[in-house]
Each structure stands twice: as C-alpha cells, then as structure tokens.
C-alpha cells in the first residue's frame, strides 16, 4: 500500500504531559486530511514528528523515510507552512525566490512568478512591509512552486481575513492539489475547509478519536431534526448530542440505522464542526 504517512504506536511525552499517546494511523496518497482537535490535543506535535522536528517513541514512516534520521532528504519531498508570518521579516520577494530556487531541487521558478503576478506583491518588497495576508500569499507562492509529495499546513490561515482565507484554499485546490499530492491541514476554522477535505481525523488528549473519510462519515453519522413529541424516542437511541432549535430538537447519531432515523424526522448530514463539538464535549471541563 502506498501510504504517504504510516504511524504505528507513536508516542511523545513532554515533561508532565503525554502529547501523543500510542497513536497509529495511515494517510494514503492523493488525500486532503483535516487533523482537527482542541488546543493542546497534540496536533502540532504530530505534525512536528512527521516533519522530523521532534523526537518520539514508536514507528513513523513518511514517504518511506524516517523523519528523524533522513530529514534533509525528506524535506525535498515535503513542504510545510507552519502558522502565518514565519517568513523572515528582512527578506525581499526576489531574495526569497532566488534563495528557494537555488537550494530546492524541485522548485519551479516560473510557476512561482506566475502566481505572484496575480497578487499585489512587488519584487523589491520586504516581508516587514507586508500585511499578514500578503505574507501568506508569498509563502504559498513559494510552496506551490515546489513539486512536493506531501504538504503540511499548520493553522495556515490564522489571523487572516475571510477574503485571504477563501483565496488561500481556492488556490490550493485549483493550482496545486492533484492525485499525486497529499495535504495534511490543521485548523480551527473547520467550516471553511470542510468541503475540500477527503479525510477527517479528530485528535483529543493525544489520541485519535475519529479517523474516517468524508463519505464514510456521512454514512456513519446523521443529524435528525425531531419534533418535541418524538424526542423521548430519539433519546432512547443514545444520541451523541442534542440541542434545541425553535422548539425542535436536533439529535446527532453515531452508527444508527438510517431507516430507523427516518421515522423520527428529517435527516441531514452533520457538519464537521457540529460533529467536532459533540465529540469533544467536556474537553476543557
């Protein structure tokens, strides 16, 4: 099987906390995986392990390499944007392009420049003169021009306005993603990436609590709008979550037969954010 990432019994302990607790998962090629979890759940640690930026226990294989020992070679095939605004503030646009073009064997300069031509960035502009959104545009232009197999995005749109956020994901989908590439993305703005994900991974307290592709998720989970008179029946089916809207109840069910649910009321596919909130209930309590 051509798994891009293959983790087996992955653990990482910081002084007092277990950031990753015996985690196992596989990410096949050509997927867009959303790694979603509350603050401090271990998302960034998992990404750092994949990128060879931290030590860990267990077995982890990225594109057939061990990120701890083969990091320099691995980074030719892996790109990442960690948080916004990590480009050095002194660098100019043309310096950044020159530098990446000369140290990265898989960088396509023409592609990068074509992408930048669609933005307001000018070649002599320094990063410190740019807004947060423009910095991300530059970073994305650099990254998209690299023909990598795996792209890791850690909160890439944090603090950007909605225009930049929409544009960011649109560019990724239209100009970058294809079946040979894999993208792992973490974000708190779940609603915005929901429609582009192919796979979903929920992480909580260092454990993967849900790992599914979006199709299977639609089959497994269902949201039902139930009238007040049927609410008691619905509760007997052990819903994950219940909330009230305009005198009706919305129940979220996990793995309950669809025909059974149809009797209760109108069924719809739950949004990732609703599912997330239901799954993570009590995290901060």
């Amino acid at each position: 099987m051509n798994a891009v990432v293959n983790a087996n019994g992955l653990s990482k302990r910081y002084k007092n906390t277990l950031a990753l607790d015996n985690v196992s998962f596989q990410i096949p090629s050509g997927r867009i995986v959303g790694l979603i979890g509350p603050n401090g759940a271990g998302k960034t640690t998992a990404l750092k392990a994949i990128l060879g930026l931290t030590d860990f226990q267990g077995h982890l294989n990225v594109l057939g390499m061990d990120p701890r020992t083969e990091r320099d070679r691995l980074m030719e095939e892996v790109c990442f944007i960690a948080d916004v605004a990590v480009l050095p503030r002194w660098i100019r646009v043309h310096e950044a392009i020159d530098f990446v073009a000369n140290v990265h064997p898989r960088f396509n300069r023409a592609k990068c420049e074509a992408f930048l031509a669609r933005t307001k960035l000018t070649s002599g502009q320094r990063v410190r003169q740019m807004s947060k959104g423009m910095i991300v545009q530059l970073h994305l232009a650099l990254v998209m021009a690299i023909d990598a197999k795996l792209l890791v995005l850690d909160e890439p749109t944090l603090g950007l306005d909605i225009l930049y956020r929409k544009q960011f994901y649109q560019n990724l989908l239209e100009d970058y993603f294809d079946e040979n590439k894999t993208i792992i993305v973490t974000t708190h703005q779940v609603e915005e990436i929901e429609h582009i994900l192919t796979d979903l991974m929920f992480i909580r307290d260092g454990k993967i609590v849900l790992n599914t592709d979006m199709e299977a998720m639609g089959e497994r989970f269902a949201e039902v709008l139930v009238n007040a008179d049927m609410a008691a029946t619905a509760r007997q089916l052990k819903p994950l979550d219940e909330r009230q809207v305009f005198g009706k109840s919305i129940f979220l069910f996990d793995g309950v037969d669809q025909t059974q649910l149809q009797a209760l009321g109108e069924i719809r596919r739950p949004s990732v954010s609703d599912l997330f909130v239901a799954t993570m209930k009590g995290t901060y309590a």
Partner: protein
Amino acid sequence: MKTLYWLVKREFWEHRGGFIWTPVITGSIFLLMTVLTIITGEVLGHHSQMFHMNGVNGNWDIGRNANAESMKQFGVALDMMMCVSAAIVLGIAAIVIFFYCLGSLYDDRRDKSIMFWQSLPIANWKTVVSKVLSAVFIAPAIAAVLGVAAGIVMILTTASVAAFHGLNLWTTLASAHPVALVLNIVGLIPLYALCALPTIGWLMLCSAWARSKPFLWAFIIPLAGWFAVWWLHLLGTPGLSAQWFFSHVAARMLFAVAPGNWLGFVDSTGIPDEDVFGHLSLLHNYTALGSGELWLGVLAGAAMLAGAIWLRRWRDEA
C-alpha cells in the same frame, strides 16, 4: 557547495547593515575626524601665521627634493595611516561579529522564521557553517578592504590640503603600498579565523542553546567560571590561578574576535614599531600555527560548533 554559497549569500542579505554599512560609517567618521583636525589646524595655523613663517611660500615639491631615504619614511607614514584606519574599522567589525554570532542561531528562533528555513531541504551543519564563514571571512574581509579604502581617501585628503599650501605630496604617494597592505591583511584572515574559533563557537553555542537572553548567558558562564576558580584558589586548592583562567579561557571565549587575536601566539620582539610590513608579514604571523594553545582553542571551538549544530537540530521549543 551551491547550497552553502546561497546560505552565505543569505547571511549577507540579512546582515548587509552590519557587514557593509557599519564599516562604511566607521570609516566615514574616521575621515570626518581627520578633516576636522585639518580644519582646526588650518584655523589655528592661520591665526599664528604658521604656514607663512620664514617667508617660505611657494612651490615646494617634497617628492622632488627628497632623497630615497626620506621617501621611504613618507611611505611608512602613509602605510601606517592606512593601517590605523583599517585597524579601527576592523575593531568595530569585531563588535559586529560578536553580536552577529550571538544572534545567529537565536534570532530566527525568536521570530519563528526558523520554521521557514527548516521547511527547506538544508542540512543543519550547512546552516551553521555558513554563519561561521560569514563571521570569520566575509565580515573581516569587507571591513579590511573598506578600512584601507578609508585610509587611502584620508591620504588623498591630506595631500590635497598640503597642495593648497604649495607642498607637493603627490609624488610621495607612490611610495605607499595600499595593495600590498590589503593583500597582507586579507592573507591574515584565515589565521584570524582559526584564533577566533573559541569565541565564535562559544557565542554560537549560547545562541543555539539559550531560550532567552543569549548575551547574558554568554557572559555569565565564563565569568562565573572565573569567579569559581578564584574562590577555589582562595580556599587553598593548589594549581589554580584566576588570572591564568581569565586570560586563557574566559577571555578566549569572549574576546577572541578582536583583530590581531593571534598576536599572543607569536613572538614579535625585535621587529621595530615602524616596520608595518614586518608586523603584517604572513611568514612571521603564521608562526602562530606552531602554538599548541591555538590548536587547543580551534578544537574547543569546533566542539562547541558541533554542539550548536546538534542543538539546532534537536532543540525543542515546546
């Protein structure tokens, strides 16, 4: 090799201010002070009629009237002026290098731009080596050239002023040796690099290790060591000398980026002060390589740099 070249170029881009503009400004201030001194001399000289005494007022061509011996002396004086200029600029460059090393592996961790550099396929040892090369070769070489250049401008200024007073110094300028001077100073840079390694290594180790305030750590640890040795000596531990520790360990960790850092390893007695090229002679200065202490320092520096590379790879911020 190509990656290393671009890494050094990156350092140059980032530190253009320190590597080029600081020497330029230092040289300019030096020149300005010379000009001010000349003006002061002119004004005071005018009041006291210094330049018109004895009725001498006309076309003096020192070059024509001078014999070979005095020409040589003029040449030495001019070389000396350039040397002083270069020394001042290199001295300031040493301060730049000191702070450059201290920030080299710390600043990008603080502003998180390390996340960008780490997303590129660059081995950590190359990053660290590129910074070392910038500190010990690029910065001193630029400073040396600019320092001598400032010296040349100064000589020309002096000659022009002298010309106003009817003194023709132009022919004497030919007896100066700016090119040889630059070549000698640049030729000494590899020796400088070797002797600077203990300080470079120490500062970069602190830079890679410190979570905050690398400057404080870089100073406190050697000074605390010095104090500990002094204290143990006070308690009567035999074989300890605080003075020895300071000059051979603490000072080498902190101040070995100063120009002429190899002079402690060569014996310059017997060379007259005015023999500029005797002091700058490559053959003479490179005898420092015979010193065991120099190599011990190189070894210590290399070990600390290895530590810095390891920390750069595995320092976990979380």
